């Protein structure tokens, strides 16, 4: 088992390394002359040359790549081209906001989604199941910005309960924090809840269609006993998978939601970075997002190995 987990860890690290190479190519090599791209066509050749030297673009790409990677490992991410601020301090400030948003959402949604999916799967084609399926299908199919704008229209414009914009530099009180977080969390939570409940339902249904469940049904075992004693044990690893995959969705989800509500998180930083062509900022943010994403998928893999006796025993 340890061998299997180490293998996955190794594969994960290899992928992470490939991701850093691709991000480096994307932000340093593909734009052509980064200094020219940053300053625009109207810049004087002297200004471009000066920036090129300041950014170290006169060095070969391989040297720059290794300088960047060693910097990353040291926590030295360079400086922003847009405002000259240290990227590590920019990110530190934003990352905690994003983690707060994602953390609160996950904390609220994960248990609710699993219960919802489980109950829907226990009574397939019942009124409850049909309602859940229909509602979650709608929620999954609509873009996040429709949900976000509708929620703003209802809770901020018409009812005036909550602020439409969550731009706050620091939270002065818990109450204020909750007010600012309410709409972004609600938007993300609805999408996540729907996706996760759907995946949980189909996972459990998949297990319920296997032959040993059919055997239990033929023996006359009661429905809740089938679900809790037979199916759920085997559903652990697929459900761990579903959780991790959906948390990985949050990585993309926050990008849209932070933009709708002008929430000062990491996603806002990368989007602003792309519009101002601030390549060092894009680089660092992209690596953080990708590592988080990879980590969730790795966790899903390892959870699957741990809860599967057949995989667990291999390598002894």
């Amino acid at each position, binding site marked *: 088992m340890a061998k299997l987990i180490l293998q*996955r860890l190794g594969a*994960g690290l290899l*992928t992470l390394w490939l*991701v850093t190479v*691709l*991000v480096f190519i*994307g*932000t340093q090599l*593909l*734009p052509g002359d980064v200094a020219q791209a940053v300053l625009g066509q109207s810049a004087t050749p002297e200004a471009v040359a000066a920036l090129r030297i300041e950014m170290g673009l006169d060095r070969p790409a391989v040297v720059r790549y290794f300088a960047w990677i060693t910097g990353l490992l040291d926590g030295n991410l360079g400086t922003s081209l847009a405002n000259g601020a240290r990227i590590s301090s920019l990110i530190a400030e934003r990352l905690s906001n994003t983690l707060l948003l994602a953390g609160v959402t996950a904390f609220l949604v994960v248990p609710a989604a699993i219960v919802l999916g489980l109950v829907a799967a226990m009574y*397939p*084609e019942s009124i409850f199941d049909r309602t859940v399926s229909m509602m979650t*299908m709608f929620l*999954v*199919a*609509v*873009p996040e*910005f*429709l949900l976000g*704008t*509708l929620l*703003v*229209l209802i809770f901020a*414009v018409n009812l005036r309960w909550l602020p*439409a914009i969550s731009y706050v530099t620091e939270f002065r009180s818990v109450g204020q924090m909750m007010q600012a977080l309410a709409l972004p969390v609600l938007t993300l939570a609805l999408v996540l809840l729907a996706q996760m409940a759907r*995946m949980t339902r*189909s996972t459990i*249904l998949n297990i*319920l*269609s296997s032959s040993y*469940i*059919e055997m239990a*049904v033929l023996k006359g075992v009661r*429905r809740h006993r*089938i679900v809790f004693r037979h199916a759920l044990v085997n559903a652990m690893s*697929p459900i761990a*998978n*579903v959780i*991790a*995959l959906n948390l*990985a969705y949050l990585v*993309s989800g926050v*990008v*849209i939601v932070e*933009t*709708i509500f002008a929430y000062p998180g990491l996603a806002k930083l*990368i*989007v602003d970075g*792309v*519009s101002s*062509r601030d*390549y060092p900022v*894009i680089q660092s943010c*992209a690596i953080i*997002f*990708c590592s988080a*994403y*990879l980590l969730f*998928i790795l966790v899903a*893999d390892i959870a699957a190995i741990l809860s599967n006796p057949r995989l667990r025993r291999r390598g002894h």
Partner: protein
Amino acid sequence: MATVNIEAPKVARGDALSKARFTLTWAGRIGAAIVLFWLIAAIVGPFVAPFTLGEFVSDNGFAGAHGDSLLGADYLGRDVLSRILHGAWLTLGMAGAATLIATSVGSALGIFAAIKGGWIDMIISRIVDTFHSFPTLILGLVIIAALGPSRTLLILMTGLIYATSVYRIARALGMDIVVTDFVQVARARGEHTSWILFHEILPNAATPLVVDFGIRLSFSILFLSSLSFLGMGVQPPYADWGSLVRENMSGLISGSLAPIYPALAIASFTIGLNLIIDDFAASSGRAIAGKIA
């Protein structure tokens, strides 16, 4: 990493080998009607729109509905309905083109890898896995930062990003079919690989791949709209539905529905699409339901 496609094998086993005819439920019919409506709108929209793309119907931004301007005015005073009708072609056309690329490239490579196996399969899968381990939106943002948001790039990029998902499904399908008796028999008969591909594998993989096309189309629309909403997609003077939402966001605070209408257009199309897809998927679901009821 094999965890991502937990839904793939289900599609594979449910539909690959059965040729059950399926009929649309009432929900599926509504879905088909919505999809058909927007497809027609995409083609005739520019001709039936009450105003041209840049025409002003009001001196005020976010003016309410009046006269021919059924949905009111946008942030500059242009007709919202006309802009949605004009944007339909761009929105659906770009997503459709991207999905065609995704399905053709993804399924060709996936089935090829499944037939060949060995190191060819390993190399392609490794490359696809690496691109698959990017969160799509972040990958899109990095590519756009590098190459700029031209419409050709947006289509190609979206197509190739989703080709990685199609690849995994097509490969899983191919793997399932390659080991079946009829393929083994064809191989034993000495049939050529391309003959096996076109006569044995593709016919059996077609249904799930068509279903997947629908899912991918809905993802492509959401992805491209999201990029436009972030301001990284279609650039002015052109506007797809996502850009229409973005440019009118400032009206939301004052209660204008201008950003809601184009978002509803997107939602209605993707919901319609999903209603049709659900009917395809339901055939396997109902069999399961019967078992423990």
